[in-house]
């Protein structure tokens, strides 16, 4: 057996696996984006299995409420950058591989360059903006993405954009969901998530990566797996063999600036902004801080009637819908200043 392959003897013994497969893993460059609930287990198993170069990108710091599902971290790591802590742990687990932490946010400006350095991307992100950005960058670069997403007890897994023998590419995230209204989909902080689901889905992502690189097993191409941790039932949904989308550029990135409660109070005193409440009528009935009322789902239809001479501040209960309102407003009026009230009325009331 090749030197250093003793560690991998129990996977080299697998039917369809060989020392050649192990060398493929050793030569592979895998980029894990997001070192959270999915990224921790995915990176752990990719490191264990001997992926030669493992990039880990996360600009976020460890917080206490991450620890119930982000198993690479402990309370002593709170406040430190996730990618850096993860790299530290994984180097102890497998010192023979190269681990490259990236502590910057993946944005429009750096995504193409980063994706170009890797063979395959693992989407372990926690927001739609980064998911679409990564998906589109990988499609432009012709590289596959192993997708994972979780919410409460339910997870999704797939592998996107794999080149088939005819030179066509399999479906990508936009074949499944062409666009998303982010404000309508609760995230894990709001709806909760069971930690073991993160482990199961993250390990399934690592599994697809290993199968793809070692060229062994049937990939989740043209399919999406839906798993429910409450009933333990899963289903695999067929999407199609070839992508029907045409991605020719990265998605337009729109800044959604926020304003703090303190700054807003000052601006209101100076009469320098117009307030717009984007909540529903029944929410407004209970409490409001003034301004016009245009529920988020009516904003697009009413956008032409807005006065563009004054700075806009959109508000809602928590700041999620108002951020979406800023995005819609800036799509129409890129030159007009608009802010979302950070933390929403929850923050206003303290």
């Amino acid at each position, binding site marked *: 057996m090749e030197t250093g392959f003793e560690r991998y003897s129990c996977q080299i013994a697998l039917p369809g696996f060989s020392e050649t497969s192990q060398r493929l893993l050793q030569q592979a460059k895998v980029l894990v984006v997001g070192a959270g*609930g999915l990224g921790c287990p995915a990176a752990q198993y990719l490191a264990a299995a001997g992926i030669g170069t493992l990039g880990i990108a996360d600009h976020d710091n460890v917080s206490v409420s991450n620890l119930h599902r982000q198993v690479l971290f402990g309370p002593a790591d709170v406040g430190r950058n996730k990618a850096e802590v993860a790299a530290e742990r994984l180097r102890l687990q497998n010192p023979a591989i190269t681990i490259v932490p990236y502590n910057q946010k993946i944005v429009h400006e750096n995504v193409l360059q980063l994706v170009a350095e890797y063979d395959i991307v693992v989407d372990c992100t926690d927001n739609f903006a980064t998911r679409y950005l990564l998906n589109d960058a990988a499609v432009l670069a012709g590289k596959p993405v192993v997708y994972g997403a*979780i*919410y409460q007890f339910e997870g999704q897994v797939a592998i996107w954009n794999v080149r088939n023998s005819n030179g066509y590419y399999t479906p990508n995230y936009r074949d499944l969901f062409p666009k998303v209204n982010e404000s309508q*989909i609760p995230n*894990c902080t709001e709806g909760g998530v069971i930690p073991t689901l993160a482990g199961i889905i993250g390990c399934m992502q690592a599994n697809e990566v290993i199968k793809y690189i070692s060229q062994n097993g049937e990939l989740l191409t043209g399919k999406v797996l839906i798993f429910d941790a409450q009933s333990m039932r899963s289903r695999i949904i067929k999407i199609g063999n070839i992508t029907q989308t045409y991605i020719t550029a990265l998605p337009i990135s729109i800044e959604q600036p926020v304003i703090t409660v303190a700054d807003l109070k000052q601006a209101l005193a100076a009469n320098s902004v117009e307030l717009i409440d984007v909540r529903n009528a029944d929410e407004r009935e209970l409490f409001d801080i003034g301004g016009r009322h245009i529920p988020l789902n009516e904003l697009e239809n009413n956008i032409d009637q807005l006065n563009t001479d004054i700075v806009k501040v959109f508000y809602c209960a928590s700041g999620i819908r108002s951020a979406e309102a800023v995005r819609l407003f800036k799509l129409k009026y890129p030159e007009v200043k608009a802010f979302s009230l950070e933390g929403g009325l929850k923050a206003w009331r303290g």
Partner: protein
Amino acid sequence: MRVDILAFGVAKDIFGQPSISMEITNDATVYNLKYLLENQYPRLKQLSSYMIAVNNEYVLPGDTIHERDEIAIIPPVSGG
């Protein structure tokens, strides 16, 4: 005919339950079903996109729905 519709992700919250039953015409298409559903559950429309699968296959608006088909509404999921 009556069809059963399974809800996933936030569709469970929108329907208020993990599955619903709905009366549709015998030659209904996915488009017809979507229209009925979004009328009854306006929040569904606000999602921008959600996947409809019939018998574990992604379907297009023009596809016809048959009796005993298993229909699943699968919205996007963001967490990681």
